[in-house]
Each structure stands twice: as C-alpha cells, then as structure tokens.
C-alpha cells in the first residue's frame, strides 16, 4: 500500500489538522484504503463502469428562466458583502 501524504491531502482539501488529528486521520485513511484495495482486487474485466447507482437517465429541463434571485437573502448569511459582491481575503494572480 502506498504511503498516504496527509500534508498534500490537507492542502487539496484546505484543512488544517493538528498532530493528534493527523494521526487519527492517518489511521482512518489507512483502513479506508485497505478496503478499497480489497475491492480493487475483484476481477471486474468485462463489466461496464458504474456511473450512478440508480438505473435512470438524466432528465432534461427546457431552457427557461424560472428563478428570481434575491441577493439580499443569500447575502445575509455571508460574512462580508459590499456593492453586491461577496468579499473574501484577497486572491492574487
């Protein structure tokens, strides 16, 4: 089994874990991956990959504008709003 790079996963998931949490997650992930390894050992050649557990197909809706948006309602739960924009810590390119 490949070593789990917890630091990399935390960066991808934007999580900050302390040492105790890291150790706990390390153990959980090791068990999860062991289970995945067990599933991957099953011979699935000739079986079409499953995209969805249900048998249905995607429903399509007509191209109509059906939503009226009240930004004030949505923005009442935002930490910071100005001039109609949600404000977040600066992201720079």
């Amino acid at each position, binding site marked *: 089994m490949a070593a789990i790079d917890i630091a990399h996963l935390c960066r991808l998931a934007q999580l900050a874990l302390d040492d105790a949490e890291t150790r706990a997650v390390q153990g959980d992930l090791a068990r999860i991956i062991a289970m995945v390894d067990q599933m991957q050992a099953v011979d699935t050649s000739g079986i079409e990959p499953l995209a969805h557990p249900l048998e249905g197909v*995607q429903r399509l809706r*007509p*191209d109509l504008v059906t939503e009226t948006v009240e930004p004030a309602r*949505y923005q009442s739960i935002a930490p910071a709003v100005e001039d109609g924009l*949600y404000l977040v810590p*600066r*992201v720079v390119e």
Partner: protein
Amino acid sequence: MSTPFVTPRGWEAVIGLEVHVQLATRSKIFSGASTAFGAAPNTQACAVDLGLPGVLPVLNLEAVRMAVKFGLAIGAVIHARSVFDRKNYFYPDLPKGYQISQFQQPVVGAGRLTVGLPDGQEKTVRITRAHLEEDAGKSVHDAFPGLTGIDLNRAGTALLEVVSEPDLRTPAEAAAYFRRMHGLVRYLGICDGNLAEGSMRCDANVSVRPAGTTTLGERTEIKNLNSFRFLERAIEHEIERQVELIESGGTVRRETRLYDPDRNETRAMRSKELSDDYRYFPDPDLMPLVITEAFIDDVRATLPELPEARRARYRDTLGLPDYDAAWLTDDPAVADYFEAVAHASGDAKLAANWVMGELSAALNRAERSIADSPVTPAALGTLIQRIRDETISSKLAKTVFEALWAGAGDVDTIIEARGLRQVSDSGALEALVRQVVADNPGQVAQYRAGKDKVFGFFVGQVMKATQGKANPKQLNDLLREVLGSD
C-alpha cells in the same frame, strides 16, 4: 506593422488549444437562473449556482442540443451515453468547491476543423473531444483593499470546452484555428462570439522541440486568452521563452501561465501550483446523459449551411476568388450582409469589393459591427446598380457611400441633390473635350509626337471641368478620337 513572427531557427513549436465556448442558452446549464450579460452583481446567482445545501442540478436541454449541433458540424461522434463528473478545486469564485464537467465520457468525441492559413493553404486540425461544463464566477481584484470581490452571476453558465490535438505549429495557425472556431459557433448560433464579454476564451498548450524530431517537449498552459491577437502574441512569447530557457541550459517546467498583454509576457500562476490533482469522480447528483439517434437526427435537421459549404458556393456559383470567399464567410453576419448586397445589386464581385473595401474600412473606423452598419445592404445594392448602369462613376460612388453612411438619404436622392450624375451626354462631353484640346496646343503637339503620358493630362482637365462626373470610358474614347483627328 510589426515584423512577422519566426520560430527560432532549429526549433519547432507544438500547440494545442482548449476553447471555452459560452453557450447562448437563456438559463444556466443546471439551474433556471438567467444568463443575461451585464446584470448587477449576484442578482443572477440562484441557490443552485451558489451551491447551497439541499439543491439539485437539472441539465438544460438546449445546452445538450447545442453541444450535439457543434459535434455534428465538426463531423464528430456523438456519444450515446456521457457522464458528468466533479472536478474538485478550491477557489472563491467556485462556491461548491467543484466544477461540474465531463471527464472520461464527454458528449462529443473526436472530430476535425479545417482552418485557412495565412499563406492561403488549408489545414485540418483534429479535435479530441468537446464536453459540457459549468462556468465559474468572476473575481474583482482591484476594488477593495486587501480583499477580492466575488460576483457569481456567471457561475453555472453553460460552457462547451473544445479540446484540439496538438496539431498546430505556429502562433498564426493557432490564431487561424481560434478564428475559424469563432466563425463556426456563430454560424451554428450556439454562442454570440463576443470576445470582449468573455463569450469565448482559449487556453493554449505550448511546447517546443528540435525541428525534425517527433518526441513532445514539456508543455506549459497559457490560460484565459480572449482575443485572436493576444492568443498569437502570448504563444509567440512563450515559444521564445521556452527556446531561450532550453538553449541556456534550463528545462521547461509543466505549469500554468498567464499572459500579460501590457507587458507582452507570460508568467507562472501561483494559485494553480496544486491544481493538477482534480480528483474527478462521477457527480452523484446527475444521472448519465443519454442521447438517442432520433434526437441527433432532429438536431441535424437544424444545421445551417456551414462556412465550408458557403465558401465553396461563393467560389463555384458566384465565381468569387478564394480570398474573397474566405474573407466573406468568416463571420456569418458579414456573409449574410454580402449576400443581400449581391442579390440587390446583381453583381457578386462588385458587392464583394464594396463589402471588403469601403464598408469594412468605414466599420473599422467607427468601431462598429456589420449588424450596426448605417448603410443597409439594400442601399449598398442600389449604389452598385448605379455604378453598373453608369449613372455615377466608381470614384463618385465613394462620395455617395460617405453620404449614405452619414444618413443623407437614399442613393438616388443623394446623386440628384449633389449633382453627381455622370456626364454621359456624348454631345456635351465632346464639346468639352474639343474645348480642352483647343486650349492646350502645346500638350497636343507633345501627344502627337508620341508622348503618350500627356493623355492623362487631358483626362484630368476634362474631369476637372466636369467635377469628376465625366463617364471615364466615354471620355477616353472621345479623347482618343479628337486627339487622333486632324
């Protein structure tokens, strides 16, 4: 004009493009919120677009229809079954923390697009795939000190991402491909093609290798190019940067870069350093998309005449040169305008000359699109008729055109009001010619001594006397007759 770009000696560039086409649906790809451009911030971002808990995406039929239409136009396989995946990354303009896209099973498979190159040759570029996905929101960086503002109106807008094979070899080829794609989506009516509003954006994958070799070099990706010129210049710059780097002993790193048009350079994007790991998986909120043969046939029946067919028709039926046919068919609005002028005037070649010449120059000067031309196709058609029936000379037709542009009335009114009617009364013209000849015995002697150039002097004198209204052909004939006699 700047000097044309030349790939550094001994090197070859390999370029592939990903073009994001904003589909012209009224509502978003997975929600019923409006996609109209220019609304106040966040007034078109509904609960689904915001990724609030408990919402479910439902796919827009029109987006699927447009994707299929595009697929048919590039001769691609339409997959009977395709799957939507989650592409996971964190960025403030992506509220759900993932973008709904298609990864392993896109709706449109391999196709091709034929591109006209600057040297007049054509090249067929292979298209790998085209898939449906949702757009992200917009970040506003400059308005708030230390903060970034987020407008999610664009979040959830339907996009078709078209991925090409690395078949392009020069920046000019890449720009020609983007231009042809731009024309095609407007022919199909699936995108408004408004580059300034971001309706089409392009990412370029660029690598270099020693000329004559076949292995691919390490590539970089230049993001978010939204003009033909910027695309070309960004790739030019990136080719030069990579060659210089390798020649000075360095290696190209696989990375995402941004083009800065003000400085004409590309630089690495910091935020994308970790983004290679998108952890795609099928979106459990969406069932597989199934497209039936009947649906495909339905869409096929709505395909308009495509640019290639139109070019061939202009060449073969209207008898236009290749150059004119390609020029006029690039933009469907231009082609429609031209056809209306050709029909109204009864002369396709003259119509082509006027659309490509005077009209195009005037539109450029005024920075207007052909749809906003103050001169209607019918008016331009009448103007050309007046040239053909010799009511006015080609030269004075330009004066009439300017008056038409300025809104001075219809063609015949302008010609009469300004007295631009060509003098074709042979009696009046002959009298004038005889007068000019009699007034200039010196020049007559020179002409008769074999100095042919003096002929132009007489033409000029008569034109001056008639304020340019003499019928040029008639004038020439008369002059030769009078100068040759006695």
